[in-house]
């Protein structure tokens, strides 16, 4: 019995940590169902009123659409260019390789506030106004490091004799890439794209500097709204975003298996 005690205590501690992890998310989800005019937890009564009220706030829907477009654009472009760069970094020897690898990895070390400020100043100088493209370009910088880490990890240990065989059998380099290389490194590429999508979709810091009154991403919209309002609309928007992420995660789990995606991350 006394030997079991530490084990129970240990499991109890872990349980507390899991509760800590989920608490803020559960609170947001449940608060969105309250019948009161203000946010309260536990919710008083149950209603979907705050979800229908969203119809009267089309700006949230606009921001959601914009965020999706930006995240999608970012994911596609940064995965494409990141995969190409990873091929060069893993398979070719060239001068300045270390410097390039460090440059591409450095956005993870630079505080995104500083990058956001720098980008805003640069955009105003070259006359690039807030637009999906302006946001995508900024987000590419934030996401390429993730894409490259994941793709490089999947390229290491790649058996190149299959490619050689295809080349010898007369396949062109393009055909080899799309029919052999890409399918083999697929999981790394998809994981990179998903990371890029989520990072871009979630970004507040850089977007905060770039947005204008017409071009506002969802995180920025939520951030500015909650500075002035304390009504449950914000929790209903947030809940939709959470459900959206859960669906996305289920898809990832189905396609790749979560363990796989994250084990290559470290």
């Amino acid at each position, binding site marked *: 019995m006394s030997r079991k005690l530490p084990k129970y205590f240990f499991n109890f501690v872990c349980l507390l940590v899991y509760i800590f992890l989920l608490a803020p998310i559960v609170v947001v989800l449940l608060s969105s169902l309250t019948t009161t005019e203000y946010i309260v937890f536990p919710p008083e009564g149950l209603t979907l009123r705050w979800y229908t009220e969203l119809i009267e706030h089309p700006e949230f829907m606009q921001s959601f659409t914009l965020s999706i477009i930006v995240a999608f654009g970012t994911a596609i472009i940064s995965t494409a260019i990141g995969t190409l760069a990873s091929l060069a970094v893993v398979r070719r020897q060239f001068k300045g390789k270390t410097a390039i690898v460090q440059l591409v990895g450095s956005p993870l070390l630079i505080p995104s506030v500083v*990058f956001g400020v*720098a980008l805003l100043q640069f955009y105003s100088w070259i006359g690039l106004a807030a637009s999906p493209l302006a946001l995508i370009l900024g987000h590419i910088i934030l996401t390429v490091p993730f894409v490259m880490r994941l793709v490089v990890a999947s390229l290491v240990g790649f058996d190149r004799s299959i490619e050689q065989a295809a080349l010898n059998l007369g396949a062109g380099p393009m055909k080899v890439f799309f029919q052999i290389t890409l399918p083999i490194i697929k999981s790394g590429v998809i994981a990179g794209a998903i990371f890029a999508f989520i990072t871009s979709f979630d970004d507040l*810091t850089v977007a905060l500097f770039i947005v204008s009154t017409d071009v506002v991403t969802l995180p920025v919209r939520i951030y500015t709204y909650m500075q002035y309002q304390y009504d449950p609309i914000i929790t209903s928007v947030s809940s939709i975003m959470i459900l959206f992420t859960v669906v996305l995660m289920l898809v990832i789990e189905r396609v790749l298996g979560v363990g796989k995606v994250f084990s290559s991350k470290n």
Partner: protein
Amino acid sequence: MQAGIGTEHDLLLQQKKKNLTKKRLDTWLLLLPTLGIFIFFFLLPLFFLFITSFKNFDASTGVGNEWTLQNYIKFMSDPFYLGVVWRTVKIALLTTLITIIISYPVAFQISRSKGRARNYLTLLVLSPLLISMVIRCYGWVILLSNNGVVNNTLLKLGWIDQPLTLLYTELSVVIGMVHVLFPYMVLSIMGSLEKIDPSVIRASQNLGASSFRTFFSILLPLTLPGVFAGSVMVFSLSVSSFVTPAILGGPQVKVMSYLTYEQVAVMLNWPYGGAIGFLLILIATITIIVYSKILARSEKGVAIQ
């Protein structure tokens, strides 16, 4: 015959050279898109901001043309701003420490579990990572505000008579930060836990060591590199994070990233905001260097043991 072979040989050589130049060209073509975007939309903007941080500023005329060190001097000679630096570092240190303490048991539990349970636990730990930071912080606002869940519960239990001020304090920033950065630490510690041969632990237990003893003299030393690596990541991410301190601390708990934002977005003082930003980069870089020095030393220490 001889000549025939010679030309064939020459041809082969030429072909090889051609292939090599082609390959070199290919390499740069592969790199060009990424490199181009990084030079134009990362290096150049940061470089220009760096230059701006050495310019003078006037509230009525804006950014001036004179070169000056004033922005950096102003920051480093003012006790208020130095206090902000200290607060930033303090919050990051506290965050790192608490994250280590609460991540360790969870990492241990996951590394011990198998199959389904393991997948679900991993998913559970990593799920907050995928949910928007803004929303997670907002959840903490609901929990910690004056009439929030925590205060209401404590009032109902009769443990307090008046709501505690929890929100917009250093405490709330640390709580939010631990929540956001927790998965990074768990992943890092799990990485080094998995490298340990399970027979080592069994051996220790068979020899009669208590689980306490096994933990402190075997598990902990062997996983220190993972703990350190996780700490570097958590520390540098929390020193430079903006979202959490902005939502859970706001103007009441100013940290360096918030100061940078405020100077640029509210005061429009670009040079000063830029200077604070580069000092922030400097602090983050120094800690990473110091940490990795300690890390290198501790790894040697572990190897010797």
